[in-house]
């Protein structure tokens, strides 16, 4: 979250071969920053029960 800046976005886009102009950077940044902030606020606390029903048992412990 903290590393997401307009500069990071422009550099990453260039690295991925996308030719963003300043308005593109601004449009993407605004939308993504808002969504990341929203996600940060809702980290789920109760993840029990989401695991698959099988367990991997390393061969040495079997």
């Amino acid at each position, binding site marked *: 979250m903290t590393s997401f800046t307009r500069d990071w976005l422009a550099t*990453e886009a260039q690295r991925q071969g996308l030719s*963003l102009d300043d308005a593109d950077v601004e449009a993407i940044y605004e939308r993504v920053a808002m*969504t990341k902030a929203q996600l940060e606020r809702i980290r789920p606390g109760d993840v029990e029960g989401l695991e698959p029903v099988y367990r991997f048992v390393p061969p040495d412990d079997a």
Partner: protein
Amino acid sequence: MERAAPEVTVADLCYLTAAELGRRIEQRTLSPVELVTAVLGRIGRYNETLHSYITVCAEQAMREARDAEREIAAGRRRGPLHGVPIAHKDIVFTRGVRTTCHSRTLQDFVPDADATVVGRLRDAGMILIGKTNTSEFATGGTDLFGVPRNPWDLSRHTSGSSGGSGNAVAAGLAIAATGSDTGGSIRGPASFCGVVGLKPTYGRVSRHGVFPLSWSMDHVGPLTRTVRDCALLLRAMAGPDPDDPTASDRAVPDYAAEIGAGVRGLKIGVPAQYFFDRLEPDVDRLVRAAVVQFEELGARLEPVDLPRAPDTDAAGRILITGEAFGVHAPRLRRQWTDYGRRARTRIAGGICYTAAEYQQAAQIRALWCRDLTRALERVDAIVTPVMPCAAITLEADAAGAPPDIGRFTIPFNLTGHPAMSMPCGFATGGLPVGMQLIAKAFDEQMLFRVGHAYERHTEWHTRRPPLEAAA
């Protein structure tokens, strides 16, 4: 003196339901040629204003209408939809007919095969009348072929991305249409335009040949003027497909068979949180009135607890954006400036999310899916608003519609549960408002049963937008 039968105008014909048109065609009191001519005439009159269609298939439609007429006359009627025209959203591949996705990058693309859903509806005898307007790749703007306008108020938006399908059905420029729904793109236009729109269960309708946006969130479904028509269309569209590994092998029921069973004794869930927050007062009033109507019709209302619903909007947007970038990355690299700004910036947002964030979104999805599935074990259907507001203005959309405007629809793309929008009244100023019905996975029959019961006791679906007056 014998009284003359009331004259059936072109508009009257175009506003009949698919079920009624199919009946008249079967009884030979209406010919498919007459019907297609009427719909094409209406398209010719209003398409420049409404921007419903990107491509109109006039010659092909007339040819198919003559074929249908001959087949039916020869006693080879295929079913209740034979001879009835259908419009397909322009991200749905149609053999020999341009499929643009409203994008400069595909503006001359002519598929050499039909999408599975196109083939199914063709097999049911439906006549392809044209390709409806969509936002670019079902996510961007509408710069190339014009903005679909809302027939109830031409200064208003239809919502996207199946806006051309929504306004065509509402304005009598189509009898029925297909749409796709990744975060609400069937249900939003249905709500804003005052028609019925169904996002079926994930896997119920094949997506083969429909340009993808997000593999885990995309759904294909019908837009119609009545719930019964929606049931007829779904029956023709649904079923297994070897070309789509996500398509379910479950048998397709006759959805219209028990549509009239009523709601007496059913339990209708009303969410205790989130879905009635931050609504326009008219939307709140009309959806609550519909809830009361269900009770008056004999259903029992049950509050349902869905505390995790507010988490779904961000999770859904991350998943869609990440998956959309997966689809578009090579084309975006090659043709960045050929994409409209809205489409390219929405999709390219996918480079910004980390694997941890995608994983977190997937976890939110799993928890929400568990909650909703449990809630639906206690009730037969849940009622919510579709959109928090009636149709927004074109200016408001151009300035960037609120990013959470689809916050009541996206939760059900995350879980895959079937969800249907249907009209539940009109806001001050004459704009339609939709309510959303949600049922257990693969229980579209329940949606049709509940929706039809409501429709039989209301008249919203019979109203027509004031286009004639505006013309």
